């Protein structure tokens, strides 16, 4: 059975990855899951300088979901390379560095520094974080900016380049096409949806940033629908994300057109979820007499 997935110049050993921001730098989970069995680890977003993150509280639970406002809290690119890559480089799975910034220049400088590390398999460009004042979502909602940023980053690397899309736009396929046309090898679909929870006693939003990013099973049907639309609008692979909690959810994304998937919020609920789903996908392929994972993509 061939579970490998080709993305640009690289190949993922299998289609199950863990989403940026939900798995730290990987080692946090080493006692709870066989990290080496994963297809890919999408790291916590990496910025040029360390970021402390947003005001607290940063999380509020919602029906079948969570609203977060972490604010890209991370150790910064220097410390990432110095302290986090040593452990990550021992992993046989693909290490995908998620990069973020407040300006095109920052994204480029982060990538230039990361390019010095051979163990990094590829990049996921975070142009869709709803929780920072500058950059993030501002890039992801404007096709021209997406095109310019992706084009600039494309010139800096021959490694797989994945653009993470926001669902907070009128037409996600326009952004996906802009990424594809400027050299992206794949798109991740979707980042969190903007949401708000209000404390009616305090008459104020629960999160100090007022809004946050909604994730978890509540958003799964949105993610599946967007994956379906995007996969039919572009010819590059789509990586499905959003509320995957079990094998059935993962298969829905793949049947909708995703070549690979990422588990996000699900890691918080059951740290073993990614390997359980990987096993579930293999079982399904066996039952369906499928030899290659690619036979599953968009197959309905």
């Amino acid at each position: 059975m061939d579970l490998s997935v080709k993305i640009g110049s690289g190949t993922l050993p299998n289609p199950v990855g863990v989403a940026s921001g939900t798995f730290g730098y990987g080692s946090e989970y080493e006692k709870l899951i066989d990290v080496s069995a994963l297809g890919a680890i999408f790291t916590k977003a990496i910025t040029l300088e360390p970021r402390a993150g947003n005001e607290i509280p940063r999380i509020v639970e919602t029906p079948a979901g969570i609203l977060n406002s972490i604010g890209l809290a991370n150790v910064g690119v220097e410390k990432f390379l110095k302290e986090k890559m040593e452990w990550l480089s021992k992993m046989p799975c693909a290490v995908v560095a998620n990069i973020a910034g407040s300006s095109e220049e920052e994204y480029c400088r982060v990538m230039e520094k990361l390019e010095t590390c051979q163990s990094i398999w590829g990049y996921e460009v975070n142009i869709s974080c709803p929780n920072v004042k500058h950059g993030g979502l501002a890039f992801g909602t404007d096709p021209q900016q997406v095109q310019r940023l992706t084009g600039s980053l494309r010139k800096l690397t021959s490694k797989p380049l994945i653009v993470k899309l926001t669902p907070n736009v009128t037409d996600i396929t326009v952004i996906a096409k802009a990424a594809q046309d400027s050299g992206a090898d794949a798109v991740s679909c979707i980042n969190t949806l903007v949401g708000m929870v209000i404390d009616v006693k305090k008459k104020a939003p629960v999160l100090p940033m007022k809004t946050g990013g909604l994730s978890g099973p509540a958003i799964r049907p949105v993610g599946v629908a967007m994956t379906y639309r995007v996969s039919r609008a572009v010819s590059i692979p789509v990586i499905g994300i959003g509320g995957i909690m079990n094998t059935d959810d993962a298969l829905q994304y793949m049947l909708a057109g995703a070549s690979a998937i990422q588990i996000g919020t699900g890691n918080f609920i059951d740290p073993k979820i990614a390997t359980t789903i990987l096993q579930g996908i293999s079982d399904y392929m066996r039952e369906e007499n499928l030899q290659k994972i690619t036979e599953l993509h968009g197959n309905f």
Partner: protein
Amino acid sequence: MKQFSATIIKNNKLCKDFFQLDFSWESEKPEAGQFLTIRICDCTVPLLRRPFAFSAFNNQSSIASIIFQRRGIGTELLAAKTPGEKIDVIGPLGNAFPLPEKIQKPILIAGGIGLGPILFLSSTLQDLNISSKFIFGCRNELSIPKSDQFSSQHPVICTDDGSAGFSGTVGDYLSSIWSTIESDSVFYSCGPHPMLAACHQFAQKNGSPSWISVEQIMACGVGACMGCAVKVKQAPGYARACKEGPVFSGYDMVW
């Protein structure tokens, strides 16, 4: 740290809305201050695992305990669990209370549902033959837990409405006995934020070490998501309640 399926041994109501859950333990020995997370049900509401501090650990029988308050969907479901049922647990997580140095006189202060970790610390000190003063504050006499472990620690009870024990908050009680507090005391506290702040102020006034256990909403519980941040003085200005904590020196916190 380990994820496993624990068997519930007992789920006893200790007082109005406080329960003690005893369950089998298959991971490293937990210490006072540490916590575990429980996936309360295989459902999407509630979604996140819930963190609970250990309130006791029996080394011989390998049974761990938590004390929880029934106050939402998750704890409502937990309160309904019966012996023999399984729960998905991860632990032990976080750091523990540093034990007092030989010359130090521990003062243990718990408020409401902050009882669990302080009670565990009190029992631990008792096992080590270290005498301590244990103060427990709650709303009224209905909020006083009825358990052998609790009464064996001979706590000073403070009630907000004066219906039992000292009439007033734990802060009021500390003020009332201030002249008797020794200079080589060490303060340990867990409870609502205003209580922690008050306890830390007392420790500061006395020039004593101050250890507090914080509560924060958590997502991963293992240091990955940065969701449970609390404000600290040291750069970058935040620390994770689940990893660097939940026990912090009061002197490191931004109050």
